[in-house]
C-alpha cells in the first residue's frame, strides 16, 4: 500500500500488527509507545523524520483512546494531570531549545541515545529491584512499593507560598487534595515541578513522557499503579499533541498511515486496558521493568550501529523491541483469558 505523504510503500498487515502491539502495551503500561512505533516504522522502510512525526501522531491517538477507556474505569486523575501539564508544557519548549543547541554542536543524536540508554537501564533495573524487594516479603500489600516512605515525605513537602493570587480567581490556596489518587494533602508545586522535570526529559528524548511519568507517580508520589497509568496517558495526550503539531507543520506526518495503525491500536487498547483490571499491580510493574530494559538494549544497539556503521545492528534493535513487545502482548492476552476462565469457574451457575 502506497502512502502519499511519506511517499513510501509499506505492507498494511505490518502496520496493523504494530498498531495492535502499541495499543495493547499503551493501555496496559500507560505509555504512549513512541520508542516502539518509531523503531517499527524505521524497520518497515519509512523515512526517519516521517517515522518520528507519524509515530508522535499515533502516540497522541492511542493515548486518547486509552485515556477514555481508563477514565471509564475511574483510573484517571485529571486534576493531577492538569497540574503536571502546567510544568511540562513550558519545559517541553525549553527542551526543544536545548535540542537545537545540541544539534548545532553536532552531538544531538549521540547525547540523546546515551541519555536514553542510561535512563532506561536505570529505570528498568530499579523497577525489577523494587519488585524483588517487595516480593521478598518486606511488604504484604499488593500495590505497595519499596519507596513508600520516600513518597510520603515528597507528598508532605511544603514548597512555595500557601496562597497565590490568580487573575480571575483571586487568592487561591496552593495546598490541595487528590481524591482519585488517594492523596489527602499536597502542595500544587510538587506536581508542577515533577511535571516540569518530566516535560524536559521527554522533550530532550523526543518522547511523550509517560514512560518517565508513570513510574515517577508510582515510586515518588505513591499513586496507585492503575491511577498512575491512566494519569500518565492523559499527560501524553498533551505532550503528543504538541509534538504532532510541530512535526505536521513541517509536513512530516502521514495521516493515512496514522489512521490505519490507530484502527488496529484501538482494538489492542481494549485488551490492554481491560487487563489492568485483572492483573496484579506488582506484575504490571515487573513486566514494565522488562520492556523498559528491552528498550534500553535496543537503543544501545542502535547507538553501536551508528558508531560502528553496522546497519544490521539497527535492524536487529528494532526486531528485538518488536519481538519483546509482541511477546508481551501474547502474555497479556493469556493473562486475560486465564482470569476470564477463573471468573467463569467461580461464578455461580443457574443450577446452583
Amino acid at each position, binding site marked *: 500500500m502506497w502512502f502519499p*505523504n511519506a511517499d513510501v510503500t509499506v505492507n498494511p498487515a505490518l502496520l496493523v500488527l504494530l498498531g495492535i502491539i502499541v495499543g495493547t502495551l499503551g493501555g496496559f503500561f500507560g505509555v504512549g509507545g513512541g520508542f516502539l512505533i518509531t523503531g517499527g516504522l524505521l524497520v518497515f522502510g519509512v523515512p526517519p523524520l516521517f517515522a518520528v512525526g507519524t509515530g508522535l501522531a499515533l502516540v497522541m491517538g492511542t493515548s486518547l483512546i486509552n485515556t477514555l477507556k481508563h477514565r471509564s474505569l475511574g483510573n484517571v486523575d485529571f486534576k493531577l494531570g492538569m497540574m503536571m501539564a502546567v510544568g511540562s508544557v513550558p519545559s517541553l519548549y525549553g527542551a526543544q531549545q536545548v535540542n537545537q543547541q545540541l544539534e548545532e554542536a553536532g552531538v544531538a543524536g549521540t547525547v540523546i541515545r546515551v541519555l536514553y540508554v542510561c535512563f532506561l537501564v536505570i529505570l528498568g533495573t530499579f523497577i525489577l529491584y523494587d519488585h524483588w524487594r517487595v516480593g521478598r516479603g518486606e511488604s504484604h500489600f499488593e500495590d505497595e512499593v519499596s519507596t513508600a516512605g520516600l513518597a510520603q515525605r515528597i507528598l508532605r513537602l511544603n514548597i512555595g507560598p500557601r496562597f497565590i493570587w490568580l487573575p480571575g480567581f483571586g487568592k487561591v490556596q496552593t495546598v490541595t487534595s487528590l481524591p482519585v489518587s488517594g492523596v489527602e494533602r499536597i502542595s500544587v508545586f510538587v506536581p508542577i515541578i515533577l511535571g516540569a522535570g518530566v516535560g524536559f526529559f521527554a522533550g530532550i528524548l523526543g518522547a511523550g513522557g509517560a514512560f518517565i511519568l508513570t513510574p515517577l507517580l508510582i515510586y515518588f508520589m505513591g499513586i496507585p499503579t492503575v491511577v498512575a497509568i491512566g494519569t500518565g496517558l492523559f499527560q501524553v495526550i498533551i505532550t503528543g499533541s504538541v509534538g504532532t503539531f510541530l512535526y505536521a507543520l513541517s509536513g512530516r506526518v502521514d495521516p493515512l498511515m496514522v489512521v490505519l495503525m490507530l484502527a488496529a491500536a484501538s482494538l489492542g487498547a481494549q485488551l490492554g486496558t481491560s487487563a489492568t483490571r485483572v492483573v496484579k499491580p506488582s506484575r504490571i510493574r515487573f513486566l514494565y521493568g522488562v520492556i523498559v530494559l528491552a528498550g534500553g538494549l535496543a537503543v544501545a544497539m542502535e547507538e553501536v550501529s551508528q558508531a560502528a556503521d553496522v546497519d544490521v545492528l539497527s535492524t536487529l534493535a528494532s526486531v528485538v523491541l518488536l519481538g519483546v513487545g509482541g511477546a508481551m502482548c501474547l502474555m497479556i492476552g493469556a493473562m486475560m483469558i486465564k482470569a476470564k476462565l477463573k471468573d467463569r469457574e467461580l461464578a455461580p451457575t443457574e443450577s446452583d
Partner: protein
Amino acid sequence: MNEFLIDLSADNSLVWALFVLGVVAASALALSVVTGLLLRLGEAVGSRLGRRRASGK
C-alpha cells in the same frame, strides 16, 4: 484523495497541521466508541451463550 493530501500538506502548513490533529483526534474518538460497543456486544453475546450452555439448552 492522495492528490488532496499531497496538495494540502504542500500549500498551507498551518492548515495541514490543524487538519492532521483534527483527523487523529476525531479518528481516535470514533474508534474508541466503536471498539467499546463491539466489546460490550461481544461480552453480552458471550455471557448469553454461557448461560444457555449452563442451563443445558
